[in-house]
């Protein structure tokens, strides 16, 4: 096929070689034009997303001004929209998730890179990364049916009994242990972001040169001292990037959190047992009731804030990871 095309253009009637090749140039231009249009459509999409969000958020943002992100009262009936409790809930649950997931992810990565026999490496990575394939709603349901009762009875109640009378620390366990709260949401988030953090951390740790490990061992280091002294410092930047990437995922996570966080208190509290909201769960809980124009606009406003926070966190994570030699695409799915 290719050869035929070439032959056709070889000679003109006068015997001169045709270099103009009009037919193929036209095809090339058309093909490139179509591909260009598709690529451009991505830009159109992002512009549309931002325009729609900003236009629709305008009413609420105009009404509340800066109070939209600093106000602590969200009351659609009286048309007061302060999203701070949602922002707080997002940060609080995401940090709980990060705090639990990062050590486990780094530990699992270290096991895979430094300890596991060759044949076991790929299977462990594969299995942990399969966690990323499970849909959020299934995590939420499993959390409701299995994890929440377990955490309520085995963790929250004992914790409350232990810390309830300790000054300062009792603020962490204020309120009844219901199993629908910030803590449970944070734990489910930790499971969901585990594969994200692990796959990047594993990649970063495996880029630590063998010479660094040998240098430490040859000084008489135990394996753990080698990890602590040579591997982790070298991989530190990339691991931080991996954790921030996980944070980005946690911040935007909706269904599982919505199903487990309680969605009933806008109190800003240190208590792990607060049945609060995140930005995403607030949207998922309120969109159906958004009958007034301002309420609708306020919900879109929350989406705008969410978009900016995740965008910023992802950007920072990608910059850090790419600077330290990892590959963020490894987390694609």
């Amino acid at each position, binding site marked *: 096929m290719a050869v035929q*095309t070439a032959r056709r253009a070889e000679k003109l009637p006068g015997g001169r070689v045709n270099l103009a090749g009009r037919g193929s140039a036209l095809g090339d231009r058309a093909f490139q034009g179509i591909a260009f249009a598709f690529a451009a459509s991505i830009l159109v999409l992002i512009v549309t997303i931002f325009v729609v969000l900003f236009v*629709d958020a305008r009413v609420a943002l105009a009404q509340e001004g800066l109070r939209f992100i600093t106000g602590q009262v969200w009351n659609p009936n009286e048309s007061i929209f302060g999203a701070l409790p949602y922002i707080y809930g997002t940060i609080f649950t995401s940090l709980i998730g990060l705090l639990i997931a990062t050590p486990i992810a780094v530990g699992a990565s270290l096991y895979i890179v430094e300890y596991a026999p060759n044949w076991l490496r790929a299977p462990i990575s594969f299995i942990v990364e399969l966690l990323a394939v499970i849909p959020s*709603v299934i*995590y939420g349901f499993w959390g409701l*049916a299995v994890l929440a009762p377990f955490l309520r009875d085995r963790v929250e109640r004992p914790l409350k009994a232990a810390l309830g009378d300790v000054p300062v620390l009792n603020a962490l366990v204020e309120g009844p242990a219901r199993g629908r709260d910030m803590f449970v949401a944070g734990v489910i988030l930790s499971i969901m972001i585990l594969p994200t953090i692990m796959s990047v951390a594993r990649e970063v740790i495996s880029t630590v040169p063998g010479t660094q490990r040998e240098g430490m061992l040859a000084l008489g280091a135990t394996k753990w001292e080698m990890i602590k002294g040579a591997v982790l410092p070298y991989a530190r930047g990339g691991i931080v990037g991996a954790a921030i990437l996980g944070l980005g*995922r946690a911040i935007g996570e909706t269904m599982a959190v919505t199903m487990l966080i309680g969605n009933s208190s806008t109190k800003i509290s240190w208590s792990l047992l607060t049945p609060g909201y995140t930005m995403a769960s607030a949207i998922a809980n309120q969109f159906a009731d958004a009958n007034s124009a301002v309420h609708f606009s306020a919900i879109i406003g929350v989406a705008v804030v969410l978009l900016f926070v995740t965008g910023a966190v992802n950007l920072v994570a990608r910059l850090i990871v790419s600077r330290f030699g990892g590959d963020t695409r490894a987390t694609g799915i």
Partner: protein
Amino acid sequence: MQGQMTAPSIPGARPRLSLEASDGQARRRKIVNGIMTTLIGAAALLGVSILGIILGYIIVKGAPALNLDFFTKAPPALGEAGGGVAPAIRGSLLIVGLASLVGIPVGLGAGIYLAEFGRGRFADTVRFIADLMTGLPSIAIGAVAWALLVKRGIGTYNAIAGSVALAIIMIPIITRTTEEILKLVPNNLREASLALGTPRWKTIVSVVLPVARSGILTGVILSVARVSGETAPLLLTVLGNSFASNNLRGPMAALPLEIYQYATKSPFADSFTKAWGASLVLIIIIGLLSLSVRLAARLGGPQARR
């Protein structure tokens, strides 16, 4: 033998070298090493067993719900036993199918552009935006579709809005994987074809794309698997529907939504059984899609990175 090995220069001056971890300090280091090794192993075990626990629950609790009715019948009135999730399965297929119809060509086209023509500011911008979009929360994209097509546009919850949201999620994923795969195709293949006088577009269509076929397919299937489980954007747009419906301009049932409804909105014991069953079906669908990726990988050619 022994004599030959002792230090020759200052006989007797040196205490014998200790090669055993005998003193307290060495023992302590050994113990710390042991503890940390155990913790690291435990972290790996935990990561692996969480998947086992979750899948175990879904399979054990979901399997009893599965029977022929579950796949062929509509759900009964709330609280009644029996019936199935047929409308939800069909709804999911419709919504995801429609999203793929839009998302796959756009994603492929954009990916081809970036890989084959993508130099300069414009391409860099598209690449950057596509990367950024893969990190956007799906509920924010759902909110856009909700504002544009539910609150305005069609004016009611509808399947089209859901498909649009899913397509927006798919496009950047397909774009980036397609680009990555096409970049792995060796340049000398392109040059060989161009040197024969084949036009650029024909080189891409008949030489480059076939070589990258299985890798591109992998990326496409993974993106379909990913959006099949998406719930938040559908909740805001498609909403869910207890009845079978083919009306794309109205609310429709979908598997993820069905799980959400059964898990949270219904107080009956049977609802949980149905939710487990629906979860199992959804996991099987996503599992089959991912498995077909593994098979596609066997077909050879450059692969998407996992």
